[in-house]
């Protein structure tokens, strides 16, 4: 449900009651489906009023040295994307590092930030092995202004605090999926409870080979990537 009087969008506002009972919310991103369009990133900015220059969600290119550039030599090229937001780790180094418990793990597994308590020391950003957190180096500027954007009612952040993906905790609290999940035009993002063996995320992880980023760091990310059907290596089968 959006604010009173606002339009209700069928896809965006579909309630999933299971999310309210979840104990370890996680995400599965299908590398076979992702087309690297950045719609998730834009939707995230809109939903969460993320300031200019800040990104809670970025789409990394798995390929060459630059964005959208494949690896390999023509015609043996390889390219895929790794849509990356906070991994809401099961062993989150940021939570350990925060000196004032401003970043903490919620009972449903979401790692979130209390913007009213953060002192802006940025130790959590140092502790994150993925650079998935961003800092308000200035008073955040929204363009277009948040007031013009119909969806999203996340409280504004002051300058000088750290922010990051919250799995849209304000939506999850109402049983709604995160905005990036509903916005993805190819359905590459699946959201659900990793502790529930019958959830779609658990089923996909059983049926398809997957990976997490930097498993050797022991952070146990809750965002998993489903591998492409054919291995993506330069010179490999297309």
């Amino acid at each position, binding site marked *: 449900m959006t604010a009173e009087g606002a339009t209700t969008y069928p896809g965006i506002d579909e309630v999933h009651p299971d999310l309210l009972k979840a104990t370890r919310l996680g995400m599965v991103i299908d590398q076979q489906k992702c087309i690297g369009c950045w719609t998730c990133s834009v939707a995230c900015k809109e939903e969460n009023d993320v300031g200019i220059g800040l990104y809670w969600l*970025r789409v*990394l290119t798995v390929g060459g040295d630059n964005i959208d550039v494949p690896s390999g030599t023509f015609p043996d090229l390889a390219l895929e994307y790794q849509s990356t937001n906070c991994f809401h780790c099961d062993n989150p*180094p940021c939570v350990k590092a925060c*000196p*004032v418990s401003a970043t903490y793990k919620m009972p449903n597994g979401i790692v979130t930030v209390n913007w009213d308590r953060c002192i*802006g020391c940025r130790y959590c950003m140092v502790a994150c092995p*993925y650079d998935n957190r961003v*800092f308000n180096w*200035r008073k955040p500027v929204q363009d277009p202004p948040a007031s013009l954007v119909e969806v999203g009612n996340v409280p504004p952040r002051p300058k000088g605090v750290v922010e990051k993906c919250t799995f849209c905790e304000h939506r999850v609290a109402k049983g709604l999926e995160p905005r990036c999940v509903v916005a993805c035009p190819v359905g590459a993002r699946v959201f659900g409870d990793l502790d529930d063996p019958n959830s779609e995320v658990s089923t996909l992880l059983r049926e398809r080979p997957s990976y997490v980023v930097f498993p050797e760091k022991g952070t146990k990310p809750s965002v998993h990537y489903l591998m492409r059907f054919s291995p993506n290596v330069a010179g490999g089968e297309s």
Partner: protein
Amino acid sequence: MSAASAEHVGARRAGTSRGLAAWLIVLVAVLAAGVGVWIYQYIRGLQITHMRDNVIWGLYIITFMYLVGLSAGGLIVASSGRLFGVERFKPIVRLAVLEATVAIAMAAVMILPDLGRVDRVLNLFIHPHFLSPMIWDVTVILIYLVLSLTYVWLYTRRDLAARGSWLALGTRDTSEAARARDERTTYRLAWVALPAAVLVHSITAWIFGLQISRGFWYSSIMPPLFVTSALVSGLALVIILALVVRRFERISFDNGLVSYLGGMLAVFVAVEGFLVFCEVLAGYYPGVTTDASRQLFTGRYGPGFLGVEVTAGLIVPFILMAFASLRRRPAIVALASVLALIGIYAHRGNLIVIGLGKAPIQLAPGTPLGTPQASGSDFAMSSVYFPSGYEIVIVAGMFALAALLFTIGVWVLPLKEKGHGAGGSQADG
């Protein structure tokens, strides 16, 4: 004393007080500039620094580490001299303790401009999270600050009381028996102060060394390396300050002590060099081309590491201080100390900038920087950090405050030990 020489001394005193006044005015001016820029930073936010989401920490944290090291080093030198009965340290023990106190107080202040929300700094005490090494550091720094202040008071209170100064804080007894009691108390306190000084810099090292996120930092060598670099920089600063303060006749010691301290500096520098070598070899040997230690020798960080940190900061001071003939010349000892101080500052800088410079996930376009860029991408795979003018002015202001506090301390506190009184022989050691 003849009238002529009394006149000469009088003129020199007047010259000294004029010089002191000019020195204080310069320090206050730099401090005022620093505070002014800090207020500007508070209004504009940390965007006026050159830190961004890629190089998340910069000159403020580099200087914070440096100050903690200077303090720990000073106190370790002072208290180990006390504990192990190195009598020849006596003339500089009070000076070293004063240096340690000022440095740790300034380290605590230095954290503040780095905070995005300095107005919420009390959250560190209202909502402490005891798993965070930063809370360990806050705790140990405050304990250590109280310890240092106690030390300064214990060392000077009888002499202050003899002068009738209120700074004696209620102490009236100036008898030899009372002095002997204080002597024993400082000895006992040294048993606490020495481990506390080692701990304060070890915990600062753990802020970095316990983070698995940064390969360049995640190493068990960090605390020993930090403690050693603290010894190098702390001793070097004590040497320089002792030579300066001696010129103004606030303390007295002979040049034998200077050459003895120079020898100690050579040993500390050698250990520091060994630990740096261990660290670099372990990073380099496996041949992982993405390892941060590869950046130490070539490219943009080469001059800072090989040139400043290793050559100017370790090799040259070691060579200078390894020869007894050079150690006997206070000017050479002072030169080696200045170089060592610069080298350790470079070490702190290299640690931060190389440790954070590269985006951990090396996939294009990299890490978002956090502010829109006038030209080029809002993301970066790796970043060059050099502090902005604003950062430099704020840090200069903090150093000016440190110098101000130290100068006041030197002028107000009796730094001369009784029995090491006037004159000061110039015997060669």
